[in-house]
């Protein structure tokens, strides 16, 4: 089977003290007084796995296990400190609410902006604009600035755009929990449609039922390392038992 995402020996390190040096002045002072030390934090250490085209991979783990960092690495937001990530195909990340949305602008403007971030021309977006609006059920709020949207509305809009630009790889971080049961159902149908067309999906969720329902395989992360990987049932069981 063709590989869509390949993660090889990836490690990600953050400098926890980096935000203390913010200006040239402080930098010079701290460098001069030799107070320029950092605390290293490895969010991920030596993570390797592959996701095949058309597969739905779930990522499980407690808070701080490195799930979001992993997704951001695959989305290209972070560059790994060590290791190589190869992604074949376009990625639409739904990592946080309103990825790449500008709160000052209306839903309409944000749809075009977001489409452009995914490399879609305004002309192409014209073609799918109505579909997006109907799916997100925000027809009455087209020209309302996003800052006046509820978090549910923004999430619906984000989900609608990311799924309608038809990316080859969709990354979802805790998005499915937002919105009412009706929208959640609709979202699942939409993801199934995308899967039918051969899309690859990565899902992070604490809702173990969601993972069980839509994933083929799953990864269990523990403190930045892979604790378990394989059939979704097995991994979910390990996660639920807390035996990792």
């Amino acid at each position, binding site marked *: 089977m063709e590989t869509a995402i390949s993660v090889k020996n990836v490690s990600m390190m953050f400098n926890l003290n980096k935000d203390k040096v913010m200006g040239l002045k402080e930098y010079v002072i701290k460098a001069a007084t030799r107070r320029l030390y950092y605390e290293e934090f490895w969010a991920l250490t030596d993570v390797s796995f592959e996701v095949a085209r058309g597969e739905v991979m779930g990522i499980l783990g407690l808070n701080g296990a490195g799930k979001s960092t992993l997704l951001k690495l695959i989305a290209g937001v972070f560059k790994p400190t060590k290791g190589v990530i190869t992604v074949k195909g376009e990625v639409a990340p739904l990592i946080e609410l309103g990825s790449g949305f500008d709160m000052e602008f209306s839903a309409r403007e944000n749809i075009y902006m977001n489409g452009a971030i995914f*490399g*879609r021309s305004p002309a192409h977006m014209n073609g799918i604009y109505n579909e997006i609006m109907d799916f997100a059920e925000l027809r009455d709020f087209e020209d309302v600035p996003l800052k006046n949207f509820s978090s549910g509305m923004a999430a619906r809009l984000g989900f609608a755009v990311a799924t309608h630009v038809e990316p080859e790889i969709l990354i979802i971080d805790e998005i499915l929990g937002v919105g009412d049961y009706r929208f959640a159902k609709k979202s699942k149908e939409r993801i199934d449609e995308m899967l039918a067309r051969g899309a690859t999906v990565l899902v992070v969720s604490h809702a173990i039922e969601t993972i069980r329902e839509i994933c083929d395989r799953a990864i269990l992360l523990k403190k930045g390392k892979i604790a378990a990987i394989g059939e979704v049932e097995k991994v979910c069981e390990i996660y639920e038992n807390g035996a990792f």
Partner: protein
Amino acid sequence: MTKKHYLATTTILTLALFLPFWQYLPMEVAGHRPGNIPMQIFYAALMSATTAIIATICTIIATRRTFIRTQLATLARFRHLLFLMIKRDFVTRYRRNVLGVLWSLLNPLMTMLVLTMVFSMLFRFDIPNFPVYLLSGQLIFNFFSEATTRAMGSVLGGAGTIKKVYVPKYIFPASAVLSSVVNLAFAFVAFLFVYAITGEPLRWTLLLVPLPILYVFTFSLGLGMLLSSMAVFFRDITYLYGIAMTLLMFLTPIFYPVTILPDRIFHLIHLNPMFHYVSYFRELALYGTIPGLWANMLCLGFALAALCVGLFATMTQQDKFILYL
């Protein structure tokens, strides 16, 4: 031959080509006052550097085809985003204004009116058609100042996007500089208006005006990219740059003629790229002459040097941006 070898050879060759001829540099390029030998050497070195940079760019294009191709593909993919960002800047600027786009024309006109009044009453310089002289200097300098200042904060301003999705980081300074070009276009229409009503004859050299604008654009883009990367790591650069901008403005003959300057400052001013861009523009627009090969080499040299430094800074640092935003 490896890249390093090639670079070294090109640099040595171009230095060898230009340095021996420094004394033959035309006086109008080196400044028409006698006794500025260091200046002539500086120019000769800059000419050599320009040739070396062009040679290097050619080498990179020739030897790293795949790299160039991926970069161009990325740029093509994000061109719609670039376009929408420029459009958004434009719309934001005029969204809450009654007069809307008209402000773009009125703003330079009114500034010009005020400055002309101030300068023709307070300080009297012996400059024919002072309004046009002033406005031409302002046109170029304000574009540069606006473009670089906005570019500097652009990556910081795009933090929300950078943290959530992948976008090539140069898109932020690029959109800032390009939106300033839109404003420049409006200011240029205002300039032409003043040009016409003050009775300047229409010169065909005006058609060549896009050339110096292209030079300033490249220079601003390069400097803007460099500043935007620096601002991510050192936020207080913004204040320093504001001061530097004020200094640079007085070191550019916008409202005074170069002839009033004492020798020392006169030479200093020739190190200021903006001096050359403003002069280039005035040569075409005000005096109807076409700057020669040397002037073009100088303007191109500053522009390409800035672009290379800016691109290098952004390309090597962009992966770290996210950790500091």
